[in-house]
């Protein structure tokens, strides 16, 4: 697989604060890459450097074979950028906006085609930008980033502020981009979105990449313990559980339920069942689940925050 983005040892400080403290990244051509991290983790600084908008103190960066610090007009032909929130040129219609930007590229995509792709129909095309709904405006943002027919697209929080239905539509649209073979560098705060769209995920915290992998494997999610959740009937105390299950019990309840972390969920469930049957009680609200991407993400970022505090102390 050819490489679209290659970053090695990237550093950037603002005053005393090291926003990016040695980041390594690699994104393959045609890949959808999700870049996750809490606010202030160095996400925006990194993206701005990749987009050719920010300087750096150290490190090597190559985007489509070019150092974005020396972004040429030629390079900009090949890169599309969807920023966080941008209301656009308020007085122009959607179609005029598209024509304005189409005129800045050597070989733009057809305007109608592109509007179709993002799901803005003819009716919306005639509307003044200022009157669009939030979801429509975001589609316009994406359409404007696509109009130059880029190979690589930066999508910064594309669905923030969307209602669930609009988010599903947006995902379909991004699937369409995947089929076009575009490389997509995505940031989002919605783990469901990253899981649904991304081929690969990197998590940044405190200016460092703390983990990297596919949505299924990140944070050792594939081999992490399953969670068994249940309640006991009134009159039965937690402590009456067999010892080998008690050893797996988490100290805090989760949504009012007992939580066991199990590396062998089938065997442990069997034990639980035999025990309950022997006592003639029913286990309530039983659920067995693998850790979600959100669980893994929260654990990773919490661990990173913990490490940092220790370092300071």
């Amino acid at each position: 697989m050819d490489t679209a983005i290659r970053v090695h040892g990237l550093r950037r400080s603002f005053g005393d604060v090291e926003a990016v403290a040695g980041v390594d990244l690699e994104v393959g051509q045609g890949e959808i890459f999700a870049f996750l991290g809490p606010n202030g983790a160095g996400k925006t600084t990194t993206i701005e450097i990749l987009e050719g908008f920010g300087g750096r103190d150290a490190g090597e960066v190559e985007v489509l074979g070019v150092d974005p610090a020396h972004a040429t007009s030629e390079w900009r032909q090949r890169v599309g950028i969807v920023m966080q929130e941008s209301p656009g040129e308020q007085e122009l219609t959607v179609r005029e906006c598209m024509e304005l930007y189409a005129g800045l590229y050597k070989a733009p995509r057809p305007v109608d085609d592109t509007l179709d792709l993002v799901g803005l129909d003819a009716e919306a095309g005639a509307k003044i930008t200022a009157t669009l709904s939030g979801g429509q405006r975001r589609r316009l943002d994406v359409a404007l980033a696509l109009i130059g027919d880029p190979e690589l697209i930066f999508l910064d929080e594309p669905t923030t502020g969307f209602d669930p239905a609009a988010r599903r539509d947006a995902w379909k649209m991004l699937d369409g981009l995947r089929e076009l073979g575009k490389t997509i560098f995505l940031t989002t705060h919605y783990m469901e979105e990253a899981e649904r769209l991304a081929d690969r995920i990197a998590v940044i915290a405190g200016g460092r990449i703390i983990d990297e992998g596919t949505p299924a494997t990140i944070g050792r999610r594939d081999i992490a313990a399953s969670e068994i959740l249940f309640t006991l009937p009134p009159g039965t105390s937690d402590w009456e559980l067999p010892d080998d299950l008690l050893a797996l019990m988490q100290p805090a309840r989760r949504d009012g339920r007992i939580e066991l972390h199990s590396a062998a969920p089938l065997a442990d469930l069997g034990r639980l069942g035999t025990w309950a049957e022997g006592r003639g009680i029913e286990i309530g609200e039983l659920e067995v689940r693998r850790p979600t991407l959100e669980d893994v993400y929260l654990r990773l970022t919490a661990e990173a925050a913990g490490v940092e505090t220790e370092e300071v102390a």
Partner: protein
Amino acid sequence: MDLVLHVTRFQLRAFLRNKRARMFTLVIPLILLALLAGVFHGGETTVNGVKIDYRQFFVPSVVVFSLTLTTLAMLVATVVNQRELGILKRRRATPMPAWALIASQSLTVILMAIGTVALLLIVGAVAFDVRIPTDGWPALVLGVIGGAFAFCGLGYALSTFADSADSAQPMIQLITFPLFFISGIWIPLSELPTALQVIAKIFPVEHVADLVHRAYVGAVPTGPVLLDVVILLGWAVLGAAVAAKRFVWLPPRRG
């Protein structure tokens, strides 16, 4: 250059659809012209010892006033607004080179300014019978072009000192209104204390005023044409230098 014209075309269209922009560039100057020329009809004022008709004084004054507002104020408002909304960043993210972006923004306000000035000249001539003598045209052209350069340069410099459209507005008023008063457009320069006259001569508005008044009334001028041109170009260069050092494309960071 094609790029510049392409973007300028769309920007002009957006401008003309914007109520506030129309108000600023067309309505206010016209109202001002009607008020001043209408109220002070028949009177005379003395400029540098020369008696001239009030209307002959005020029509060019309104031209200078609106030229300044359309170029300087509109440019600052536009640039700051576009930066705040991320439009500058989006444009910069396209293959369009930075110079073309700057040129198209400047060209947009300059074309707007030329349109307004033309409108004022026509209204001045038709409604108030104040015309430019044939030999006054070079001075007018020089004034409009010199002013446009100086105010665009200055506009880009000033745009780096405001990070939102809301804070740009009062800043521009704070700068332009005192300048209007000391620059011989509402009150003839010769009526002001010498100290103020000297201060006025440092800033660009007075020199645009001098050139435009010169176009209408050959005798009014308060200094050599060369001085006007040098000072205006000086401000253009100074503004461009400050902007080159301070200008940013990205919107201010939120948190």
